[in-house]
């Protein structure tokens, strides 16, 4: 199963629509999408919900073999935590998908990581999904649960001073 998630704050119809189109052309693959409270486009070729309960969402991640998500840090941390490959699609300010184009920066940074595939446009999405599915053995590498100790220690000192 492929799980699509767009974050919890702003809608991201362009990604939902692009994956829905892909799902229509790949009916052999089960695709499930969490489209957010304010998404206007309702998918036709995949199962979808607005916002899954945390437990339900965790169960869906468990069942998934690939995550497709907006290019937020949270997407990357989720994929790392659950050892899944990840396709990232950045939100663009020009389409009012976010307040700035910082997800382009995030995508350029994270695309260097193993198991991360970036589609900058709708046209690049099928290629990125294919590349990810072709390498099921490569997932985003697990991370320690907390920030590196020297950084934590310095923040701690600043809190106490």
């Amino acid at each position: 199963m492929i799980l699509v998630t767009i974050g919890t704050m702003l809608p991201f119809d362009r990604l939902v629509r692009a994956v829905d189109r892909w799902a229509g052309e790949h009916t052999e693959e089960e695709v499930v999408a969490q489209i957010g409270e304010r998404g206007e486009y309702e998918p036709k070729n995949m199962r979808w919900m607005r916002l899954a309960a945390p437990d339900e969402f965790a169960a869906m991640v468990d069942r998934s073999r690939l995550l497709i998500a907006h290019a937020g840090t949270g997407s990357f941390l989720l994929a790392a935590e659950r050892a899944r490959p990840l396709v990232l699609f950045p939100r663009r300010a020009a389409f009012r998908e976010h307040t700035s184009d910082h997800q382009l920066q995030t995508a350029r940074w994270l695309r260097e990581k193993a198991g991360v595939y970036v589609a900058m446009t709708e046209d690049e999405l099928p290629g990125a999904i294919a590349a990810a599915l072709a390498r099921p053995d490569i997932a985003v590498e697990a991370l320690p649960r907390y920030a590196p100790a020297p950084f934590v220690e310095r923040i701690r000192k600043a809190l106490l001073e």
Partner: protein
Amino acid sequence: MRKVLAVASGGGHWADLCRLYPAFSGMDVAFVSVHPNYARQVDGHRFYTMRDVSRFDRWGVFLLLPQLVRIILKERPDVVITTGSAPALFALALAKVLVRAKTIWIDDIANVEQLSMSGSLARHVADVWLTQWPGLQTEQGPEYWGAVL
């Protein structure tokens, strides 16, 4: 005991803050974020929900500000720390004015090539003003001390 108010909006901002959790050990910490279901991730601590705001939702500020005033006057923190975004900027400013708290802004790690707009404005209200990318550090600030990843 040191009283800390730890504030972050949703998604990556909250994830960044949670990755700093060991920095709070032995302190009296209350958390503030935008989704009530985040509370379970900081079990055992006081948790408050605030209204999320952005440049798409300027009117939300009128709901956010009274929420923050109530939280800050109730908690009276010695120090407020945040990993963004816009609502947290208001939290730092209010905490400074209302209870003269020390304020720490850590710009979100997602801002790789330039600071967020809130992060740039934070220079006016943050006693400690940090970026998570060495390339964004300048003589006039922000400083780079490390990153959550």
